[in-house]
């Protein structure tokens, strides 16, 4: 197994899969980077450094810099997917879903169903999301819940390099539109990555740790924050079942329910505002399906119901913290 970070896992997976399957194409703003300048193509290999070398290796037919036009990027991906290609479209900030929403929401997500199940739309949209870099209200949002709410889309959020490889490979080999969320603060996270072919099935949560007292469900950066909270309460002998969802659509309901049936206590951690959130969805699902197992009301740890502020200390106050997760764990344990 190689040690690499999430960024490297994504780059190497793109290289390997594009080599394996000539139908895969990549498009987005600055994915080549430097086109039409004296520095030339690949002066920059993608603004997040997730596409270096791809243009040199696969050429301008398969690695396409686009003008700034997200509707066109996503719409072109949808059309190419209907025409036998496997496009990977990059939105350098997930917030720009706003600009391209119709092509995701009314088009790509609905083709298969609307056309009587006779077609497929194998497009992967890579979205860079999340708070933590003071990028403020229009560049920090975690819009995964919104897209999870839309039937027809698969929604994926890797938190380890191994999962980045496994989930991206699965996305590229599947036939559905996949929203592949990359947290902007996690690119540097290192870990072991299996060599060779590695696919991670969707809808299979990762058991990060087993502790038996409280079930904590999280995704993305919140998994790492939950681990910190789990370390903190472990000092007092409290054991956490921590689940990393990996994908929110499909959702591994069984893993969540199984754990809650054991612990009787649930904390859901979600890096977005609370109303109609992933946290609310999971809390409701558990309340409905495992009510008699519950020893305390499910707790949601979310951001406040507000946009994301710029100032460093305000942003810190906005993002759910390990401390808030720890407090929620203690709260559900203290309930009687």
């Amino acid at each position, binding site marked *: 197994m190689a040690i690499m970070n999430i960024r490297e896992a994504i780059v190497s997976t793109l290289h390997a899969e594009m080599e394996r399957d000539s139908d895969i194409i990549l498009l987005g*703003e*600055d994915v080549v*980077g*430097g*086109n*039409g*300048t*004296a*520095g*030339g193509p690949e*002066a*920059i290999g993608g*603004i997040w450094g997730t596409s270096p070398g791809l243009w040199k290796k696969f050429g301008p037919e398969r690695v396409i*810099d686009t*003008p*700034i*036009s*997200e*509707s*066109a990027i996503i719409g072109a991906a949808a059309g190419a997917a209907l025409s036998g290609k496997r496009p990977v479209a990059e939105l350098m900030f997930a*917030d*720009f879903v*706003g*600009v391209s929403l119709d092509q995701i929401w009314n088009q790509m997500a609905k083709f298969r169903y609307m056309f009587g199940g006779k077609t497929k739309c194998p497009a992967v949209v890579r979205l860079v999301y999340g708070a933590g*870099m*003071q*990028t*403020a*209200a*229009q*560049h920090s949002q975690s819009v995964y819940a919104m897209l999870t709410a839309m039937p027809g889309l698969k929604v994926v959020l890797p938190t380890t390099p191994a999962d980045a490889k496994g989930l991206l490979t699965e996305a590229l080999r599947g036939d559905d539109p996949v929203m592949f969320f990359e947290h902007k603060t996690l690119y540097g996270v290192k870990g072991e990555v299996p060599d060779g072919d590695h696919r991670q099935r969707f809808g299979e949560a990762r058991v990060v740790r087993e502790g038996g007292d409280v079930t904590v469900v999280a995704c993305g950066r919140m998994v790492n924050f939950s681990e910190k909270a789990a370390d903190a309460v472990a000092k007092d002998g409290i054991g956490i079942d921590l689940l990393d969802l990996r994908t929110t659509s499909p959702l591994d309901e069984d893993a969540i329910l199984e754990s809650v049936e054991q612990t009787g206590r649930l904390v859901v951690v979600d890096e977005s505002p609370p109303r109609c959130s992933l946290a609310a969805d999971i809390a409701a699902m558990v309340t409905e399906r495992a009510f008699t197992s519950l020893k305390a009301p499910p707790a949601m740890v979310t951001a*406040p*119901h*507000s*946009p994301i*502020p*710029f*100032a*460093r*200390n*305000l942003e*810190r*106050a*906005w993002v759910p913290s390990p401390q808030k997760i720890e407090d929620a764990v203690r709260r559900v344990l203290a309930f009687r």
Partner: protein
Amino acid sequence: MQLNRDELLGAYRRMKTIREFEERLHEEIKTGEIGGFTHLYAGQEAVAVGLCDQLTIDDKIVSTHRGHGHCIAKGCDVKGMMKEIYGRAGGLCKGRAGSMHIADLDVGMLGANGIVGGGAPQAVGAAIAARIDGKGRVGVTFSGDGACNQGTTFEAMNLAVVTKVPAIFVFENNHYSEHTGDAYAVGTNRDIASRAEGFGMKAWRANGCDFFETYAAFTEILEYVRAGNGPAAIELDTERYYGHFEGDPQRYRGKGELDRIRAERDCLKAFRARVTGAALLTDADLDTIDAEVLALIDEAVAEARADEQPDPATVADDVYVEYY
């Protein structure tokens, strides 16, 4: 050009304020005290000042992610801006906006914008409001050569044309959208003004590094738009001296390119040469302004550093207007 002495001094002061604000930020960012993304406007001063000097406080502008220059030209408080960029409680937007979303509606500056192309339709809305109010006001949108490719810009231009509202589309072509050149990304043979013409709008073209040429073009445009002829557009050939954002290594630039544009296409140097050459102002006049501007920027940075951080308890305030 009938600019009087005071107008010339004022224009120079605003351009110089923008330049020093940016030069100073370029240094301060290295300290790590300023977070998030900062996109500097240095090099493009003649555009913002050439236009905004001819606007009133009731004319509205909508800006880009590169908004400091538009803010200063439109009359935003420089110290309030600096505090905002430092994320302080006394900032123009209480530290919520930062560099990329800064706004000051009191001076008709409806906001920088983190969404490329997000502003253009809003300027049309401002122009609709201006026409209803009937006081000859205008709505202006600034866009880069990148933003002109966004659907919103096209939709806004068409809406402005069919409604014949007093909207002005200002295209600042600094030849780069992030790291991609206009030679690659702008499909009309790089001619953005012709797109506006394609929608049936009258369009101007000017050298955006020449304050006087830019100013004169805006005088004509404002006359045309205020007379009720409907919207207008202008494409300005300009330069940005710094990277797309602070920290951008600019590997896409040609060798010596930055030195060359600084030497040959500096709107401040050109302004000085022109006004002193024509004996309209003296070097001493301009040097005095330089010193005053530098002192103002020093104060702004010191006050921003000393200002308080916003109270974390206020993080979810201002989501809605409170009615009771």
